[in-house]
């Protein structure tokens, strides 16, 4: 992005806050590694959200305080975390039964690319030099009720991550419900991307220019 772009759009924390606003009271939520983890910090007061981490904990709490880290209490990103009162530990088969069985309400994931049909690519750039690694991403998109993506609208080199068709290997097809980028909130409706909210200073025209996918407004 050009220097001028810096003044418009949401910060990463504001993006996380936008996601948090859409997480309802009582939801069971799985947060992906990286940017999605920020969401937990912005859940509005009065809402109780239970966090699932696929490595075997329902009721994940905050990141462990320095000095209180337990190498046997980690999240899916292998960060040291805590457990809330009322938490439960379980094995991997049970944990992915929760995911695949549709019991998790919302999962927030990062993305390399999201297509206008809601296809998600977030596990492999397809670069043959990279070590392939998938983790639980494909299980999450296949099983969780609602998939939110939180992502910068464009890559560092300025290419749009909101694309007509993913060129990177897919994580899942038609799985994303909503995209929270630094420029807008987009909703996938009937295989089309609708603008739900524009970030401050962002016009529809500007957003379309920054998007490879065709966008619609209600």
């Amino acid at each position: 992005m050009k220097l001028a772009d810096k003044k418009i759009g949401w910060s990463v924390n504001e993006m996380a806050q936008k996601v948090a606003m859409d997480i309802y009271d009582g939801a069971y939520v799985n947060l992906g590694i990286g940017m999605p983890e920020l969401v937990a910090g912005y859940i509005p007061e009065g809402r109780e959200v239970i966090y699932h981490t696929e490595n075997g904990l329902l009721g994940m709490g905050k990141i462990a305080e320095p000095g209180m880290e337990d190498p046997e209490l980690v999240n899916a990103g292998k960060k040291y975390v805590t457990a809330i009162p009322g938490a439960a530990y379980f094995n991997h088969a049970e944990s992915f039964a929760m995911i695949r069985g549709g019991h998790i309400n919302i999962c927030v994931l990062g993305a390399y690319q999201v297509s206008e049909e809601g296809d998600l690519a977030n596990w492999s750039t397809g670069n043959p030099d990279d070590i392939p690694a998938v983790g639980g991403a494909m299980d999450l998109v296949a099983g969780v009720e609602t998939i939110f993506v939180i992502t910068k609208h464009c890559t560092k080199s300025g290419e749009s991550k909101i694309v007509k068709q993913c060129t990177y290997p897919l994580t899942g097809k038609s799985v994303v419900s909503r995209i929270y980028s630094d420029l807008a909130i987009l909703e996938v409706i009937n295989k089309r991307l609708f603008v739900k909210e524009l970030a401050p200073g962002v016009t529809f025209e500007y957003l379309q220019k920054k998007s490879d996918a065709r966008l619609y407004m209600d």
Partner: protein
Amino acid sequence: MINKIVKSIEVAVADVFDGATVMISGFGEAGSPVELIHALVDNGAKNLTIVSNNAGSGNVGLAALIENRQVRKIICSFPRTAISVVFPEMYRSGKIELELVPQGTLAERIRAAGAGISAFYTQTSVDTPLAEGKEKRDFDNKTHVLEHAIKADFSLVKCLGADKYGNLIYNKTARNFGPIMCMAAKTTIVQAKNILDVGEIDPECVITPGIFVKRVVIITNPADESKLVAEKRRYP
């Protein structure tokens, strides 16, 4: 804020609708949610498909539900018990349909539904009448049958204790089908003997994590089905 504990058992089962598939926990009387079943009798929903290991004893609990003509079909491993009168009568007169399933296959089909597995291959029942009409396939040169997940609209489950998040613990062999039925239904309704504070259950010992539970009703003194049967009680 999350509080799955509902005040009345009527409210707990109020949305069970005609034609619903309802799982009922228990192995004989152990783990059978007698009070929830009786609430379902009061609710009156008809044409139910019931998934339960047995088909009830005497004229209470599941037998009462069947006697009240609310059950169109039962999916079951062992409908025959020593003091079972209602089901045999209804079955012989063609008033109830039976899908007989080996007990382990029944459990696995329920678990599969809860775990998002649509179908699986097992050797159980191969070469028996219960494999007739089922799709066969060899793995490692052994014949298997294809078995499908059983999903439910509702599960009625009995447990020992629950907190407001819906975390559950069970008592001894009354656990049986409870945990997997909690997983397999869109709406899981639990009767618990005790209400527990959040955090009172050791997170290492939670048997059913709250994510699988929609509503909890506290029944402090649940009836022993065998006593009701011995006393020849009827419901309603």
